[in-house]
């Protein structure tokens, strides 16, 4: 288990050349399937953001992320930054904001969304948009 806050800032290196591409900026989540689909990497010098599909990653370790390729995928879904986003239940009530997200670094599967009111298991996630993360009412 790993938290988004722990993954953020990890150096991203290519597996074959051990060349440092940049630092991990954010993780893009598909709320319906409950997995991390893409990661965003900010270049060390250029500050340009690169999007990598989850499949391009070789491993997310405690100290670094290793990638097989730095080629950007053809289609990039819109990114919604989860930490800090407001949470709404499907009944229109608020559950505060996302503090952190726990995920499996091996598979990219979301385990729970951490909030001030406790953890929300991934199977309660319904949708993720520009305004809110929508979750099933308990």
């Amino acid at each position, binding site marked *: 288990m790993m938290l988004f806050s722990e993954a953020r800032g990890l150096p991203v290196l290519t597996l074959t050349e051990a060349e440092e591409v940049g630092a991990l900026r954010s993780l893009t989540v598909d709320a319906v399937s409950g997995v991390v689909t893409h990661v965003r990497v900010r270049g060390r010098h250029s500050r340009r953001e690169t999007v990598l599909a989850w499949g391009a990653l070789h491993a997310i370790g405690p100290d670094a992320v290793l990638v097989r390729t730095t080629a950007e995928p053809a289609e990039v879904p819109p990114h919604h930054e989860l930490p800090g986003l407001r949470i709404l239940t499907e009944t*229109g009530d608020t559950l505060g904001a996302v503090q952190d997200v726990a995920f499996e670094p091996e598979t990219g599967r979301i385990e729970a969304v951490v909030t001030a009111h406790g953890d929300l298991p991934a199977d309660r996630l319904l949708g993720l*948009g520009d305004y809110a993360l929508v979750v099933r009412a308990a």
Partner: protein
Amino acid sequence: MNELLAARSLTTLPVVTLGGDAVAQVKDTVFDPAAGRVTGFTLSGRGLLSGPLKRSLPWSAVHALGPHAVMIRDALALQDPSTVVARREAQQGRVLHAKVLTDEGAEVGTVLDVIVEGGASGRVVGFRIAAAKALMQGSRRRRHRVYVPRGETLAVSGRALVIPADATRYVADDLPAFVARVGAFQAGQEGTAS
């Protein structure tokens, strides 16, 4: 019972899809007073400078009404305004500022706001009224604003609506107290019916 909400407080509430996108905000709540239900919402765009939206939201497309958002399945729920507005022009003017009478002929006050039940029912459970003197004996110092439950049978005609006389025994001063009173009132009505 679901949370109770004052219709006027719904204005500016965001309309959010289950996918998490805010597509509009509530401009006005439209009622069918005879049926005691919300028929839908007129909308405006989100943001400071956005005006009215040429779309409306019929109640049938609402997933749930909550204190922080009106949830809809997706943006396809928004419809041509005529489905909601036609009713609004015919009836909304009749609810706000309408006279409230009991079925015994006493004037209770005038309607300031409509209290609806959150969730998926869209039921009107009562009214916030400017109380007439008959209802608030001994408090002539200031105009009293109170909440009264609506009876299951509600007559609306012209500029007045009629509630059961019994309902005036369940008046509350604020919304949290009103939640308990509505429960007691409904329990009492079921008791007399059987």
